[in-house]
């Protein structure tokens, strides 16, 4: 066997354990979930009788009852949450990174403060945020409302996550939840951007300055394009977190009044482990996976097509 071919085989064998493990623990289980979603499993013990697409139908046909209403709300909530969450993480993360890149004293301290939330478990930070955003009543404001009242900013007080109203289909109650989630993960995007900024050679910027470009111009035309791959990477990693999110919202608000803060992750957990509707829960999982695939697959395809061309 030629030297190269032997190397290729070794490479393959290095990857093999991972491939096998993922084949079983990821794709095998996805297949199992798919089978269950097509079954009649509705109590604590497995029941694999065929049910066709009934479980999926129940999630989408409004006439079928509360489940469909809840799921529709969930999907809108996921969209709203994902968009705002990503905007915040990327936007504020980038801002903080740019600020920290300005040779500030005490950068290490600031960096640790922004990174620290990542170290905390979602489960307890959820409760803390629940207290912070608890609105209290008109005469007895609590949490943030109490602070706003103390600062004389009463006009900014509102019902936070108890607000069941929305801007169109977007529930305002999600805003405090998005703030809580962003708080936890902005540090990560900040770190990524900071590294990216540090990686831009100073000569590039100097050359532009010599040519007469303003600082703002430098950022717009040199720095941002270089940071683009980072943005993409952050969007992927954070995007999949937001599509799967469960722990934080569950402990902070639960499904919320009128399902204002409900997401498919919570719906799936309650349906399966509280209601024992395993098949229904599996159907929700499959749809969650499809949603993720819709976002991820185009990205992966484009990345790897690009790499093959290189």
């Amino acid at each position, binding site marked *: 066997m030629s030297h190269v071919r032997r*190397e*290729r085989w*070794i*490479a*393959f064998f*290095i990857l093999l354990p*991972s*491939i096998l*493990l*993922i084949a*079983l*623990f990821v794709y*095998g289980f*996805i297949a199992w979930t798919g089978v269950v979603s097509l079954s009649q499993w509705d109590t604590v013990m497995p029941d694999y009788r065929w049910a066709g697409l009934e479980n999926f139908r129940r999630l989408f046909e409004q006439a079928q009852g509360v489940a469909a209403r809840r799921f529709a709300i969930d999907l809108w909530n996921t969209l709203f949450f994902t968009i705002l969450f990503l905007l915040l993480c990327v936007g*504020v993360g980038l801002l*903080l990174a740019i*600020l*920290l890149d*300005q040779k*500030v004293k005490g950068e*290490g301290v*600031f960096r*640790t*403060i922004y*990174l*620290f*939330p990542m*170290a*905390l*478990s*979602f*489960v*307890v930070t959820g*409760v*803390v945020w629940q*207290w912070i955003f608890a609105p*209290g009543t008109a005469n007895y404001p*609590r*949490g943030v409302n109490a602070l706003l009242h103390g600062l004389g900013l009463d006009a900014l007080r509102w019902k936070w996550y108890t607000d069941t109203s929305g801007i169109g289909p977007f529930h305002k109650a999600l805003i405090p939840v998005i703030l809580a989630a962003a708080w936890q993960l902005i540090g990560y995007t900040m*770190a*990524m951007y*900071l*590294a*990216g900024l*540090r*990686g831009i050679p100073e000569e590039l910027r100097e050359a532009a300055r010599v040519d007469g470009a303003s600082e703002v111009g430098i950022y717009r035309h040199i720095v941002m394009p270089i940071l683009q*791959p*980072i943005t*993409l*990477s952050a969007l992927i990693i954070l995007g*999949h977190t937001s599509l*799967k999110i*469960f722990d934080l919202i569950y402990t902070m608000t639960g499904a919320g009044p009128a399902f204002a803060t409900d997401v498919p992750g919570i719906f*799936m957990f309650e349906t399966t482990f509280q209601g024992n509707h395993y098949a229904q*829960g599996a159907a929700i*999982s499959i749809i969650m*996976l499809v949603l993720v*695939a819709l976002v991820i697959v185009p990205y*992966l395809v484009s990345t*790897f097509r690009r790499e093959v061309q290189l």
Partner: protein
Amino acid sequence: MRRRLDPWRIGIYALLTLFALLFLVPVYVLLSSSLKTFVEVEDLSRLWSLPSGLHLESFRSAWFGIPSKGLRGLSQNLLNSVYLTVPATIISSVIGSLNGYVLAKWRFRGANVIFPVMLFGMFIPYQSILIPLTQTLATIGLGGTIWGLILVHVVYGIPITTLIFRNYYAEIPTDLIEAASIDGAGIMGTYLRVLFPLSLPGFVVVIIWQFTNIWNEFLFAVSILQKPALQPITVALRNLSGSQIQEWNMIMAGTLIAAIPTLLIYVLMGRYFIRGLLAGSVKG
């Protein structure tokens, strides 16, 4: 040298400080709640007030438990978390490193398919695979053991560790690899002699990410490890909650205690984290 005290600098510091204060708000609540008495912490209207005194009993109860009342503390479970997180982090990092190396540097047919397929594994919602997971572990004889949970974390850590290392190694010039090949080193030899010594920043990023996620993980831990003697600290932390009445001051104290190891890692390795991200594992 004149210090630049122009408005821009002041603005920068002001913004940074403002954000720092905003970021510290929940930490303040966490800390002050842990130092309050039960009556104080139950009173939401006193959320922002300072504790009436340094009530360290909640820390004591959270750590030691109250055996006479059947309340288990966290002390017994800290070591379990270590036994779980350290091997799982190391193993998944090494596997990720090897995978990343192969996928970045050794093109063979199918490599471009294998990587995305592996990556997709990151995206499954974990609640949905709980049942088949526990049953599979039971079938292979690892049900209810720490090694079973380690296996789980290794498997589900493979996609992200591979991703990070692959991007990291993609930045390393291929000439280095070719040079080693010409010298006669095989695939593993090249790894050990050339790549591994250069991998430190990559390992730092992966270790920080994996350590944090595995240490704080709850769902798998509570479903797989039944014996209370084996449970990691996150489960023990949850168990400080009663079913009807929660003693929040004690729970907050417990949270702070449970966060100390991860916090230490961040503080100590934070600088290398940035350096690691800098060295190329950042790019998409």
